[in-house]
């Protein structure tokens, strides 16, 4: 109980003055790591944990941050994305937080990161064994929309009573002719626990299955942690005669020409003009650096990149990313 005062002086000499390495005190980190171990041992099960107040608001990634803060070390390299992009305000802000409190290296290159913290996307580039993907979770309970009561939800998980979830999919097909859930699409993990994949688009669901990297999920406000260990079965719910399908676009990425990525719609004017670009900003920039081109001319693409501050910009730790042309 008295060790924390020693911890408070940032021993690494690099973190924020007056705060421990990666903000949380070591006791809290140990508590969270124990919860993570439990979560890994019971894939898909929501482990309650004593979530702490973080200096960012609830709903802005406090759960993911606590998980990251508990597992990050001096040698780690961190990538933070929001909506697939490294340069959205919230991603920048969280990356700044760890650069400031933990003084770790940051990167935008998926393959270089040892930890990737994400909100709403799984990176397009494959992740490998040894990497960790940390998801920020606003609502960990996949049954919440059907059953607002926590006590009843926990019973349904404990008894594996998931008929009601299937009813909601049935209702979609009866009403719309298809399962009208496009994100937060529920999955069964390891044939046992129903799990919310967080609001990633269902496009990303198949990536979770048999994923080589460890997937950790942190919900700060709801104080739950859950996990998918590497190479675990993750199945999106469906019907035999209405199998799970992912979104498809008729268009390709206007910048890099990719045909198989999740695309953001970019409104060009107020007369319905639009184009589509990869939501994963790093993936798109890398492909362009490799010479891939979409329909947009080079000069227009450069103008776009300059406007969104996406590609041709040094990352904030001052290192120019290698793939930038």
């Amino acid at each position, binding site marked *: 109980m008295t060790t924390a005062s020693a911890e408070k002086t940032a021993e690494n000499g690099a973190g924020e003055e007056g705060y421990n390495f990666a903000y949380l005190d070591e006791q809290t980190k140990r508590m969270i790591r124990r919860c993570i171990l439990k979560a890994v041992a019971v894939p898909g099960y929501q482990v309650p944990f004593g979530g702490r107040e973080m200096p960012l608001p609830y709903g802005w990634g406090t759960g993911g941050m606590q998980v990251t803060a508990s597992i990050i070390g001096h040698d780690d390299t961190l990538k933070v994305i929001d909506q697939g992009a490294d340069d959205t305000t919230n991603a920048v802000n969280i990356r700044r937080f760890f650069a400031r409190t933990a003084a770790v290296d940051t990167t935008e290159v998926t393959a270089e990161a040892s930890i990737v913290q994400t909100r709403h996307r799984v990176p397009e580039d494959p992740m490998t064994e040894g990497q960790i993907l940390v998801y920020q979770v606003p609502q960990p309970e996949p049954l919440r929309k059907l059953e607002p009561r926590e006590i009843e939800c926990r019973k349904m998980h404990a008894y594996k009573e*998931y008929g009601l979830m299937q009813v909601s999919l*049935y209702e979609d097909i009866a009403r719309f002719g298809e399962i009208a859930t496009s994100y937060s699409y529920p999955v069964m993990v390891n044939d046992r626990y129903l799990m919310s994949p967080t609001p990633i688009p269902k496009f990303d669901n198949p990536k979770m299955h048999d994923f080589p990297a460890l997937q950790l999920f942190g919900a700060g406000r709801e104080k739950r942690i859950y996990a998918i260990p590497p190479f675990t079965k993750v199945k999106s719910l469906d019907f*035999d005669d209405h199998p799970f399908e992912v979104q498809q676009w008729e268009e390709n990425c206007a910048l890099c020409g990719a045909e198989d990525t999740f695309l953001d719609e970019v409104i060009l004017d107020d007369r319905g003009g639009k184009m589509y670009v990869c939501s994963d900003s790093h993936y798109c920039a890398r492909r362009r650096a490799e010479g891939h081109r979409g329909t947009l001319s080079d000069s227009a693409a450069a103008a776009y990149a300059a406007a969104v501050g996406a590609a041709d910009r040094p990352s904030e730790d001052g290192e120019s990313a290698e793939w930038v042309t």
Partner: protein
Amino acid sequence: MSPLMRVHSLSHAFGNLLACSDISFELHGGEVLGVVGESGSGKTTLLNCLSARLTPTNGIVEYDLRGRGLTDIYTLSEPERRLLLRTDWGVVTQNPRDGLRMGVSAGGNVGERLMAVGARHYGEIRQEAEDWLSKVEMDLGRIDDAPKHFSGGMQQRLQIARNLVTKPRLVFMDEPTGGLDVSVQARLLDLLRGLVRELNLAAIIVTHDLAVARLLADRLMVMKDGKVVETGLTDQVLDDPHHPYTQLLVSSVLQV
């Protein structure tokens, strides 16, 4: 033949108030037992104790579980009881709101039990739902409508279909025709009588309405102040009541 359900010395008290006291009986497969008495006589408490939804203060409720034989249902774990309630048993409540999901379509309501036990083929689930909706004489055009828009009689028929879809052997009914118009009641009773015979269902029906009891029940239990005062074959009890309370009950309603 061993009974489907055996009840021994069942009592339940709410604090000092003894709601039902020392009740014993046996129920065989395909048999319909009517429990009659005025409101406050402990009928509903008894039904809740029998259907694994209220742990009795005293006594034993045994049920012939598939593959396990007669088993005290209160020795089962909660998930086992919940599974029993949505597979081998059915519960039809007086207020359809308690027994239906009012915002889920009729088809979804019927299909829920199938999906709960693992059905994953939309077309087959829907076909089964349609079959059951026709069996309870519902318009198939309403299959995608939510029961909140249905009449009381239709809601009750839907509740029955929703319960029977897993082919239960025992159904508990609490005033299944209560609150309905007389003509609607008559149609529903006809339907219930037909289904019970056709499916060889056992049922325990709680009602204050002796006409319902006469139409549906093979045997009757008459309750007063939490106690059973008279039992016997339905015709016997209604045509030749022995206990003064039964006599009063019978004489206070029009003969049917």
